[in-house]
Structures are given as C-alpha cells and as structure tokens.
C-alpha cells in the first residue's frame, strides 16, 4: 500500500516535471524515468506483458530516439551560431 502510494506520487511528480521543465535534456531523462516507473506500475497491476513492453519500447527505444533528436537539435543550433 505504502509502496503503491509512493509509486503514484513519483509517477505524477515525474510526469509534471517532464512537461514543465524548460531544459529539454532534463525533460527527456524525466520521461525515461516516468516510463520505468510506469513499467513498475503495470507490474503491480498484474500486467507483466505490458510492463515488459513499456520498459523496452516506452522507456528504452523512445528515450534513445528522443535523446538522438536532442543531439541533432544541439548540433543544428551550434551550426547556426558559431
């Protein structure tokens, strides 16, 4: 019960911070954290299939793609203002 309450609080906090932080890198990292916590929540809800998919695709692959996009953005910005 306490664990579940902590999990829900952490989910909400990470979601709000990921959406509201002005630093994009921070937002991506918080999104990955949110994905991993969500996987834990699915496991707690007795849905291990979805937990596996969420951890692998939601947090892992999407996180890697977002970080990659961020790298491209930084590179573009550096080209514009040398």
């Amino acid at each position, binding site marked *: 019960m306490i664990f579940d309450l902590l999990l829900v609080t952490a989910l909400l906090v990470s979601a709000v911070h990921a959406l509201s932080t002005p630093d994009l890198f921070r937002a991506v990292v918080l999104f990955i954290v949110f994905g991993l916590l969500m996987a834990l929540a699915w496991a707690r809800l007795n849905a*291990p*299939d979805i937990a*596996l*998919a969420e951890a*692998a*695709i939601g947090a*892992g*692959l999407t996180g*890697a*793609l977002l970080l*990659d996009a961020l790298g*491209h953005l930084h*590179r573009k910005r*550096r*080209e514009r203002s040398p």
Partner: protein
Amino acid sequence: MKTLLTTTVLLLAGVLGVALGWSMLDLPAAALQLPAEVKTQLGVSGVTHPVTAVLLNFRGYDTLLEIAVLLLALLAILVLPQATPGGDRGPAPANPMLQSVARLLTPLMLLVAGYVLWAGAHRPGGAFQAGAVLAGAGVLLHLAGLLPPWASPGRALRVGLAFGLLVFIAVAAAVMLQGNLLQYPPAWAGALILLVEACLTVSLALVLAGLYLALTDTSVQQ
C-alpha cells in the same frame, strides 16, 4: 493577460479530468465476461498463456494489422530524404569501455530475446518483447560505433523487414483453405503460433531498430 489564460486552461483541464473520471465511474458493468470466455477457450488456442492466446489466436487480426502499421511507419521514414546523400562516413569512434560492454551484452541480449520468445507460449513474453530486446541490442551496438546507420538498406534487409508480415499473411491465408481467416486448426495452433512469432520477432527487431538507425545519419556533423 497571460495569467488569466493559464488559469482558464488549467480550469478547463481540471473540469475535463473530473468529467472523465466521473464518466469512468459511471460506466455500466461489462455485459460479456471476456476473461472467463478466454479461459474456457484456452484449450484450443495452442498456448497456455491467455495474453498470447488473445494476441496471436483469438484477435490475430489486430496483431497482423499492427505489424503492417509498424512496417508502414518505417517505410515512411526510409523515404525521407537524407541530409547528404554521400554520407558514408562510419559512426563516430566511441569510448572503448562502451564498446567492450556492448560486445559483452549483445550475446546476453540475444539469449534473453530467445527465452522471452519461447516463454511467450506459457508465461508473459512473446514476439513484441523479444523484438524490442533485439532492437535494443542493435541500438546499443550502433551507439558503441560497431554498427553503421542505414544509409540505404540493401535487399537482404528489405526482405528481413517484410518477412514477418509476409509469413503472417501466408499463414493466415493457408488456414483460410479450411475455415476462416486466422482460425488455426487446434492441432496445429501451437506450432503455427510459434512459427509466426519467431518470424515476427526478426522483423519487429529490424523495424524497431530501423526507426533509430535510419533516422540517425552521422553525415550531419558540425
């Protein structure tokens, strides 16, 4: 002005949230007990894990179309114009530590993917998860500089991408000879599902890794 706008948006979002929650609580009870139905039909599905039975047998249609959508998404990415066509520069040399970790982890990830695929018949697991693990291995190898990005996929890669969907469609069409689309004969169901899942794993791994490898072109450097 801006604070007024923010307050209005927050207020509307709050009202929407409360309305959604209220309508969820107000839903009528389900008329059909689907979990019980699945449990009674599990014997003829060829697998013993209810999620796999639903995904690959009872609602195989959905999975078939999902694979088609994923493949379509990757095709759309592949036709995007690359930034510079002559960018055949290899990936940037990475940290040697990362390289050796990637070399160590890749066989383990292959093993895990194989296990997850096999375990899908009787416990949580299956083609999607196994494919995602394999795709993760591909992305890791790429980040370590051991796997080049896909400038233009060759013939073998193209065949591999479409292979899972083609096998799935072939199986679906073959069982149509003596019944309906995707209605496996119970005696063959287990073997057919394993065949479809194994082929899907390969294609899904390529498609998911491709979403990453086709989008990163190292040719755009400062």
